[in-house]
Structure formats: C-alpha cells, structure tokens
C-alpha cells in the first residue's frame, strides 16, 4: 500500500507544482486586485464545460489531495511528534482525501 500512496503523493506533487502557481496567482491575486480583468461568466463556463478541462481538473484535485494527505501525515508524525496517534491521523488524512475526491468528482463530472 505504501508504494502506491507514495506514487500518488509524487504525482500530486508534480501536478500541483506545474499548475497551481498560475491558477492561484490569477484567481487569488490578479483578478481580485484588478491587475488583470477576470474572464466573463460565459467564457469560463464554456472552458469548464469541456470534458478535457473537467477530467484534467479532476485529476489535479484528486492527486493534489492525496499529495496533501501523505505529506501532512508525516508532518504530524515528525513535526509535532504524534506517532502514537497513527491510526487517527491516517484515517483523517486519507479519509479526507477520499471524501474530497468524491466531492470533486461530483462538482466536476455530475454538475452540468
């Protein structure tokens, strides 16, 4: 199981590093501060309704969440010396990632 989780962590690390900086810069800073004018609803809606965009964003969400789960689990173990809470931490991290993935799947694939 551990190698598989490590693979998800690693793939999520790469995808997050490649895609999140640009997306977060635009939607978190550039649009709110008015540096760049945000796209209108019709355009963004068209981009998001394309199947390729949806699958790509779902992949990003799922892998990024498992990246978080794996890394945060070890941050709690080592950073805060919580090795004795192993079961609860594992459940919280991977359970959170699974739940988040299901929510992402619902928002990206089920909602028209």
């Amino acid at each position, binding site marked *: 199981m551990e190698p598989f989780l490590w693979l998800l962590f690693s793939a999520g690390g790469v995808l997050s*590093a490649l895609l*999140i*900086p640009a997306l*977060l810069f635009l939607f978190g800073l550039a649009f*709110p*501060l008015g540096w760049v004018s945000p796209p209108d609803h019709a355009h963004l809606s068209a981009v998001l309704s394309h199947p390729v965009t949806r699958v790509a964003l779902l992949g990003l969400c799922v892998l990024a969440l498992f990246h978080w789960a794996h890394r*945060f689990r070890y941050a709690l173990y080592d950073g*805060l010396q919580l090795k004795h809470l192993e079961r609860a931490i594992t459940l919280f991290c991977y359970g959170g990632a699974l739940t988040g993935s299901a929510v*992402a799947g619902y928002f990206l694939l089920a909602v028209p």
Partner: protein
Amino acid sequence: MKVEYTQFHPRWYRPRVPVFWWLRRRSYLLFVLRELSSVFVAWFVVFLLLLVNAVAQGPEDYRRFLDWSATPGMLLLNVVALCFILLHAVTWLFTLSPHAMVVRLRGRRLPPAVIGAGNLVAWMLASALAAFLILG
C-alpha cells in the same frame, strides 16, 4: 555465564525530542515549511471547487465568488497560500525531482541541471496554457 529469565526489562534508550525541534536550524525549518505547503495545496483544491461550483450556478454566483475573493481576509489567505505554493513548486521542480529522477539517454544519466531545465520549460508551458485557456 548462566542466562536466565529476569523480570526486569532493560531501560529503553529514548531521547526526548522537544515539539519545536525544527526551530533549531534553518534547514529543519525549511523542511517543516515544505511539509506545511501541502496544507495550502489542499486549500487550493477547496478554492478551485468553490470557483467551479460558482461558475456552474450561474453569472450571479460567479460575481459573488469574485467579490468574496477580493475581501481582505481571503486576499491575505491567498497571498500566504501562494508563497507556500511557490516554495513547493520551486523545491519540487528544481531541487527534488532533478536529483530523484533518473533519466537515461543513450545509456548515460542526464545531469540534474538538464532535468531542472526541462521542468522549467514544462512549468512555463503549463502556466501559459492555463492562462491562455482562462483569459481566452
């Protein structure tokens, strides 16, 4: 020497590590900050899904999302998040993977600098594609 059962257990050697051990050295602190970057990766997923949901709901909700993302609290959170995301991206693409990835070309291992340069190109292409799709 006669070996026999004893009810006395030898004492464990377990040095106590203080909770804030990672404040002692710059490299330790950087390690913990890199690990904490994952929290902001998860925050970005939440932010992205809220955006996707707002766009799906219609123009009114999308406008409300844009207004909400311009409130001081959200701006502050996203500035901090972007700093951590950049720390993650820079360390992952240019420090970690060039040394972790073994790419062989004609039987020879590519030097880490070449892989780092390849990652830089991939990063620029991915960012340009995202910006092009969003800004149209």
